[in-house]
């Protein structure tokens, strides 16, 4: 391929990370993490449909340290992808595309997804300790 005579964009790592770019790639990353999570969701449902022993095994995995770490990761991923997804839907209607509002809604997504994750974890551990 002949060298281009026009200026090319610098590589991605040249740019300083900004809220907008970090949230953008995080939307993809959390989407992919949730895609992996769907496999575990189906495994959990199949175990439940199979037998009490298989279900106990699945519940045991999700109660293990690895399972808990994965569940916390998926909880945050889901709330982030949900909140930022709503931000995307607002953009699709034409709302909030100017820079001040893009940053305002961006920080709102960060705050809301963190708050929802904390609420879910508190509720989850409260329920788990009763079960």
């Amino acid at each position, binding site marked *: 391929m*002949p060298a*281009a*005579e*026009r200026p090319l964009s610098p590589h991605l790592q040249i740019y300083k990370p900004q809220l907008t770019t970090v949230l953008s790639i995080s939307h*993809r990353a959390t*989407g*992919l993490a*949730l*895609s992996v999570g*769907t*496999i575990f*969701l*189906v495994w959990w*449902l*199949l175990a*439940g*449909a199979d*037998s*009490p022993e298989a*279900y*106990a095994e699945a*519940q045991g995995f999700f*109660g293990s340290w690895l399972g808990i770490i994965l569940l916390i990761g998926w*909880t945050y991923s*889901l709330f982030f992808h*949900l909140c930022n*997804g*709503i931000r*995307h*839907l607002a953009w*699709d209607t034409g709302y909030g595309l100017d820079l001040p509002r893009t940053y305002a809604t961006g920080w709102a997504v960060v705050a809301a997804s963190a708050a929802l994750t904390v609420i*879910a974890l508190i*509720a*989850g551990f409260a*329920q*788990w300790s009763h*079960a």
Partner: protein
Amino acid sequence: MTEQASLRSPLGKAIGLGSAKEGVVHWWRQRLSAVALVPLALWFVASLIAHLGGDRAGLVAWLHAPVPAILMILLVGTVFYHTVLGVQVVIEDYVHHEAAKLTALIVLRLACFLLAVAGIFAVLRLAFGA
């Protein structure tokens, strides 16, 4: 940049390289499934928390009721529909080798369809029998 000499007419190039005649279908389906997933995902998280640490009897009792079973089937179906559309874009953006891209897209679609059928089957089994 030097223009490559070509015998194709401008119209021929446009027909060959232009619109795939899909328009906004992918975009629209991704948004439609996203809207559906907002209430479904919130219901799903709340329900999972309510059943944390429970045994199979609790799971059966929960999904034996019509509304939770219907919502769980809708969730599984919509989740995999949305997953196909989302991961497809990621593959198209990052995988540039044509054969690898096609393979990845085929595996993605078949795997998501398989998982969706398996998940819905499991919910139906919990809802109707077991």
